[in-house]
């Protein structure tokens, strides 16, 4: 199910808990009553032209970004007691205004914002830095999303999404992989989102209860406490999908691996492996091998095709030899 249409408000923007070089450092300085306004367009607008009275092609639904230039202009028109354009500015349905460089808007501006219940936010970042961080955050928030039933693990650096019916052994497989030094990203519910239209990122839906697993007969276990922080990961790119299914003797499974099958997830094609499960098959080792094989492929070495090339070469050279000897016989 797509969750991209989930509404995102200015309050959500203020509450975004982004760390370090992603942090937006926002605080609300005015228009608190409008914090429930929705941000529908994940983009920013510099309202310089609008403030000077030119409202053609004005994009009011975007976040309005006030840098040094806009702030200086505001000071100028406020000093000239020319508030008409500011009044007009606030008649539009603006989600919020953001002042960068810790700039404080003139009181007249704040008062008008307060009257029209338009939130005014402030950040200590520079305008370009702020807009690139904001757009990065928006591309995550407004990404296409889908939640899937499965287990998401990182094996030799490769993000593998394990799918399959309840009880087929997904969690047990993941547990064995963790035991062997690989990492758990999410168990059971994996939230997948598509960024930049070509990359899928997967993570658990809730940080508070993620990295727990339910193992039949054991109950709920905490992977981080049991195996340490090295055994978990918060998010990872989905690079391979593995479907575990009960062994069906009627079904033909891929025996060569020369053809690449893919699965469409949110419009991105991800390599897919269908692996039959039956007692005595060591699925974790198969997944480890699959991960290494997939990495080889991404480095340009395709085991199955390479093998077939060698077989073809061998047949050719045998034929050549046979021809040579049969030619020899003539003499």
């Amino acid at each position, binding site marked *: *199910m797509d*969750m991209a249409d*989930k509404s995102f408000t200015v309050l959500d923007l203020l509450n975004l808990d982004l760390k370090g070089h992603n942090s937006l450092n926002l605080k609300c300085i005015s228009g608190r009553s409008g914090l429930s306004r929705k941000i529908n367009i994940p983009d920013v607008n510099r309202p310089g032209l609008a403030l000077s009275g030119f409202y053609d092609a004005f994009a009011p639904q975007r976040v309005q970004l006030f840098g040094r230039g806009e702030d200086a202009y505001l000071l100028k028109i406020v000093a000239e007691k020319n508030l008409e354009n500011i009044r007009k500015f606030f008649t539009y349905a603006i989600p919020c205004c953001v002042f960068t460089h810790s700039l404080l808007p003139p009181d007249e501006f704040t008062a008008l914002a307060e009257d029209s219940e338009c939130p005014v936010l402030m950040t200590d970042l520079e305008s370009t830095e702020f807009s690139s961080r904001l757009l990065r955050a928006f591309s995550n928030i407004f990404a296409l999303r889908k*939640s899937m*039933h499965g287990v998401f693990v990182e094996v030799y650096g490769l993000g593998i999404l394990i799918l399959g019916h*309840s*009880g087929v052994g997904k969690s047990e497989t993941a547990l064995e992989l963790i035991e062997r030094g690989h990492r758990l990203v999410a*168990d*059971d*519910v994996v939230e997948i989102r598509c960024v930049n239209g070509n990359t899928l990122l997967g993570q*658990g*839906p*809730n940080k508070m*209860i993620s990295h*727990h*697993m*339910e193992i039949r007969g054991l109950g*709920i276990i905490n992977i981080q406490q049991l195996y340490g922080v090295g055994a978990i990961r918060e998010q990872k790119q989905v690079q391979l999908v593995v479907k575990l299914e009960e062994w069906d003797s009627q079904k033909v499974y891929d025996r060569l691996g020369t053809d690449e099958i893919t699965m469409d997830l949110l419009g991105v094609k991800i390599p897919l492996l269908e692996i039959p499960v039956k007692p005595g098959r060591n699925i974790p080792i198969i997944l480890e091998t699959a991960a290494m094989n997939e990495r080889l492929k991404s480095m340009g070495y395709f085991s199955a095709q390479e093998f077939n090339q060698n077989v073809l070469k061998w047949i050719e050279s045998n034929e050549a030899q046979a021809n040579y000897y049969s030619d020899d016989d003539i003499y």
Partner: protein
Amino acid sequence: MTEKLLTVKNRAGIHARPAALIAQTANKFAAEITIEKDDFTVNAKSIMGVITMAAGYNTTLNLKAEGSDEEAAIQAISELFDNKFEED
């Protein structure tokens, strides 16, 4: 496919024990059973999935089942909700 709207009637909401009850009951049926909360869908046969919904008191959930025994499955699971998971 059969579906039914359910309301969480026990005070504590769906924490670990009710989630285990739901998953155990769902596992008795062959049908594919899912529970939806707003725009979030989980597999009813998995305890962690059901807990992850974090469904509190008075939350409305949409129960869906698809398969040969879907009606019996919906019936059995909605009984759990009606009985407040034998809590309160």
